[in-house]
């Protein structure tokens, strides 16, 4: 079932065409990464879906309802986080969550419990009664996440959720988003970070200059662009002989140094998941590589991105 649909969605700001006939169909339970350079149209798409701006042409639908004309019904099952949110400065997180919760139909004591849970989840419990004006950027961002999940929506629209967070915070948001995806929620995740997108999303929509360049599952895109890459970390750097052996393996297209003093290499190969497993076996048995980790590399998505998104 498709929960989010856009039909020829277009947005113009004066003479600037920010979004050009975007057609997307997002199925329930999918996690879609919106990728593209600055000014590509990602935030415009998200703002249109959340009813913040009105389309110049075309329609967007959430569960079959247009948020521009009926935000109340369209957004009832949606949690949004748009850019770094700005909250009412003189209010506390609890006051803000109670306010938004009431607007969304949550009632006490359930609202109190839910607000407490959300603040705990984003690690803001101890600041629940501190005015937001005293918060750092990262804390505000975490409060933004808390308000987005407050009513336990089945659709989440997250625009750069890791913006302003420290490395621990980024990881926390990544894990939290993955858990939400695992719970079967539909997620739209806009980010510049390819690694985050590769880790969290199963599908990507590549947008540039307002146009949708590609929209498919990540593995399909990698297949279409004939880019499949694995990142391998070994105990010791591989010898020249071992590297030559790898290059001669049938599915291998190229081998590049991935850093860490030569302990990491990236292998670009042709084939599917079975080929990937066979490659792993070959590396262990024939090449004699002592492998610590063997994982799909973000490099493949990066290659797709770079091929599609021209400067």
């Amino acid at each position: 079932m498709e929960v989010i649909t856009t039909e020829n969605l277009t947005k113009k700001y004066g003479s600037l065409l920010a979004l050009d006939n975007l057609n997307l169909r997002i199925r329930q339970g999918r996690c879609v990464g919106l990728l593209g350079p600055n000014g590509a149209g990602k935030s415009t798409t998200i703002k249109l879906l959340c009813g913040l701006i009105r389309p110049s042409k075309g329609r967007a639908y959430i569960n079959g309802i247009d948020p521009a004309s009926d935000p109340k019904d369209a957004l009832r099952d949606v949690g949004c986080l748009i850019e770094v949110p700005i909250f009412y400065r003189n209010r506390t997180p609890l006051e803000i969550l109670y306010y938004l919760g009431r607007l969304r139909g949550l009632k006490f004591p359930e609202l109190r419990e839910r607000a407490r849970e959300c603040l705990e989840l984003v690690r803001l419990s101890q600041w629940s009664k501190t005015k937001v004006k005293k918060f750092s950027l990262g804390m505000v961002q975490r409060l933004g996440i808390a308000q987005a999940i407050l009513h336990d929506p089945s659709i989440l629209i997250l625009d750069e959720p890791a913006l302003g967070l420290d490395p621990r915070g980024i990881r926390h948001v990544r894990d939290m988003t993955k858990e939400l995806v695992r719970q079967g929620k539909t997620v739209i995740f806009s980010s510049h970070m390819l690694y985050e997108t590769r880790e969290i999303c199963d599908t990507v929509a590549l947008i540039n200059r307002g146009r949708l360049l590609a929209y498919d599952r990540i593995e399909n895109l990698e297949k279409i662009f004939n880019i499949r890459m694995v990142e391998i970390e070994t105990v010791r750097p591989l010898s020249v002989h071992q590297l030559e052996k790898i290059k001669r393996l049938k599915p291998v297209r190229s081998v590049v140094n991935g850093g860490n003093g030569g302990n990491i290499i990236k292998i670009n190969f042709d084939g599917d998941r079975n080929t990937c497993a066979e490659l792993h076996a070959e590396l262990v048995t024939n090449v004699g590589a002592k492998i610590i980790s063997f994982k799909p590399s973000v490099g493949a998505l990066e290659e797709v991105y770079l091929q599609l998104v021209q400067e």
Partner: protein
Amino acid sequence: MPVPPSDLKQVGTIAKFESEFENWKSMAGNISLIGLASVIVTIMLILAPSRPPTAEIFSGTFLFPVFLFIPLAAIFFAGNNVTSEFESKTGYIIFSNPVKRSVLVTGKFLASLLYVFWAIIIFYIGCIVSTFYLYGVVPQSILSSFGFALLYGCAVLGFVFLFGSMFGNGMIAGTLSFLILFLVMPLLQSFLVEMGHEPWYLLTYAAGSINAFGGTSMPGTTTIFGMKPYLGLPNPILSAIVILIYFVVLFGLSIFAFKRKDML
């Protein structure tokens, strides 16, 4: 999944949130200023070389600053209220909720109205107390004046909300409202009166009923740029209808503008 409450309940939630004193010190300061203004007017009237002969004229004189005071209260209290979501970008949070924009603007309007009504009430209390202290009576017409002041407050807020919704900027909304209510309309009104035409349809003319006490009209004795702003007393019923129409039309337009404004 929780079901969003009715529009009416959401209006109540928004009005309550917006009218809660975000900053007690600032609110207390504003209310103290209104109280102080009331005390200053009382002292000035007591110390005046000739005190007005009747309680009606005294009340009318006391309440003359209401003309100035209601728009100022509306601009200060409401200007930022309607535009804050756009200016401070809190709209990214609130607009992405299951709330109609018409509901949002109505809730904010109610909260602003509460502030303006508070200001009016405090000033009228000052008027009643000082009139009673000096004359031993309170003219009944003060009630109708109070009603007109409240209505005028609604209409003035309509202007502030309309400009706020159109431009999304409190400063522009305040300045435009100020210019219209203190310059454009009074000048046009005085000009038309000079020409012998009664501008009953102008908001500032209709609002003259606030000061029409016991058959006398204080505004009728004043001049704007050397011109008289009134041609006799405004008809109270017609004035009430005119002010009400201003309020309904301006508020309707501000909802329309608020709904169409993009949250960039």
